[in-house]
C-alpha cells in the first residue's frame, strides 16, 4: 500500500500540534505547589537548633528582611551560593538583611559546622528538621530559598540555584519594599 507523503506530513504536523496543546493543558492542570509560594503568605515559624546549640525561632528575626536558605553539605549547587550569601550578608546586613541557612542534612552537627566554617559562613546555620521542610512545601530538592519581608511574609520562593544577580535583586526587593511597608505602618 502506497502512502501519500502529503498525508504523512499533515498527520505529523497535527500530532506535533496536539502534543504542544496537550502539554500546555496538562501544565495548567498541575496542582499548586505546597508551602508558601511567595505571594505574601506568612512564613511558618519554627524552632531549630543552631550550630552552637541555641534554639532559634524564625520570629526572632521579625523586623528584618530574611533570606531563608535550605541547603545540605552534599549539594554542589548549594556550595556555589554560599560565598555569594556571605558577600550579600556583609553588603545588605546593615540595611536589615538576615540570611539564615537551614541544613537539611544527615551529617552530624560537627560536620555541618566544619563545612560552614570552611565556607566562612557569616550567618546563622540551623540544623533542619523534616517537619520544618514540610511546612515549607516539602523542600524536595536543594537549594531552595525563601525571601521573607520584615513582616514575616514570604514574597518570593526560588527553586534550585539562581544567579548571583537574581538573588541580589530579590534581596533588594525584600529590603526596599519592606522599608516602604514599615514607613506606612509608622504613619
Amino acid at each position, binding site marked *: 500500500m502506497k502512502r501519500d507523503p502529503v498525508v504523512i506530513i499533515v498527520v505529523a504536523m*497535527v500530532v506535533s500540534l496536539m502534543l504542544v496543546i496537550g502539554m500546555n493543558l496538562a501544565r495548567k492542570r*498541575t496542582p499548586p505547589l505546597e508551602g508558601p509560594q511567595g505571594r505574601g503568605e506568612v512564613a511558618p515559624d519554627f524552632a531549630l537548633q543552631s550550630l552552637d546549640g541555641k534554639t532559634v525561632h524564625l520570629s526572632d528575626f521579625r523586623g528584618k528582611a530574611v533570606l531563608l536558605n535550605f541547603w*545540605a*553539605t552534599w549539594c*554542589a*549547587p*548549594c556550595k556555589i551560593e554560599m560565598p555569594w550569601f556571605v558577600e550579600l550578608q556583609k553588603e545588605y546586613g546593615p540595611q536589615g538583611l538576615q540570611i539564615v541557612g537551614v541544613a537539611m542534612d544527615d551529617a552530624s552537627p560537627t560536620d555541618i559546622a566544619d563545612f560552614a566554617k570552611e565556607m566562612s559562613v557569616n550567618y546563622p546555620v540551623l540544623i533542619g528538621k523534616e517537619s520544618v521542610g514540610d511546612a515549607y512545601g516539602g523542600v*524536595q530538592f536543594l537549594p531552595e530559598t525563601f525571601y521573607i519581608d520584615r513582616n514575616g511574609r514570604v514574597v518570593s520562593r526560588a527553586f534550585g540555584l539562581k544567579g548571583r544577580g537574581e538573588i541580589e535583586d530579590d534581596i533588594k526587593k525584600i529590603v526596599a519594599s519592606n522599608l516602604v511597608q514599615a514607613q506606612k505602618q509608622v504613619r
Partner: protein
Amino acid sequence: MLNNIAKTAFFIAVSAALLYGQNPPGRKVPSVTLLPTPVANVFRGRGNPVELQFRVQSGFHINSNKPAAEYLIPTTLKIDAQTDIMLGGVTYPEGEQMSFAFAPEEKLSVYSGNFSLSVMVRPLASVLPGRYAFRGELKYQACDNAACYPPKKLPVRFEVKVVKPSPPRRKNPAQSPHVHN
C-alpha cells in the same frame, strides 16, 4: 486509512500530554533504574563477574563511586551475602568528568545515562547447581543542572545460575618433535 492514523495520533498525543503532566516543570523527581538483568551462569569454585546495568533518568546525573569532592555522596552498591556463595568486590566504572551550569569551572565525576557495575560472584565448590537470587541496594544522590535531590536507595535484585565447571579438555599426548628416520 487517514481516519485510523488520525485516531492513533490523537491517542498518542493525549497519552503523551498526560504523562508529561505528571511532573510539573522543575519538579521532576530523578530516578535510577536497574535494567533487566539476564540470569548469568556462574561456575562453582571460581570468581565470576556479573554485570548489572543501571539507567539514570535523562536530565539528571549521580555522583560516581569516587566523586570529585569529599562532601559529595558516592554511588555505592551493597549486596546481601549468602552463606555458600561469596561476593567479591564491586567494580565501579570511572565517572565522566563533567562540568555543570552551576559550577562551569569545576569538574565533577558523575554517571549519567546508562552505566554498569560488575559484582564478583564466587560460589563454593560445594554449592548445588541451580538458580540463586541476590538482593541489595544501590545508594545514590542525584542532581540536575541547578538542584540536588536527597540521597536515595534503589532496591536491587538479580539471579545467577550456578553450574558445574566444564571438565578440563583432554589433551592429546605430546608428539615428539623429533623426526625419526
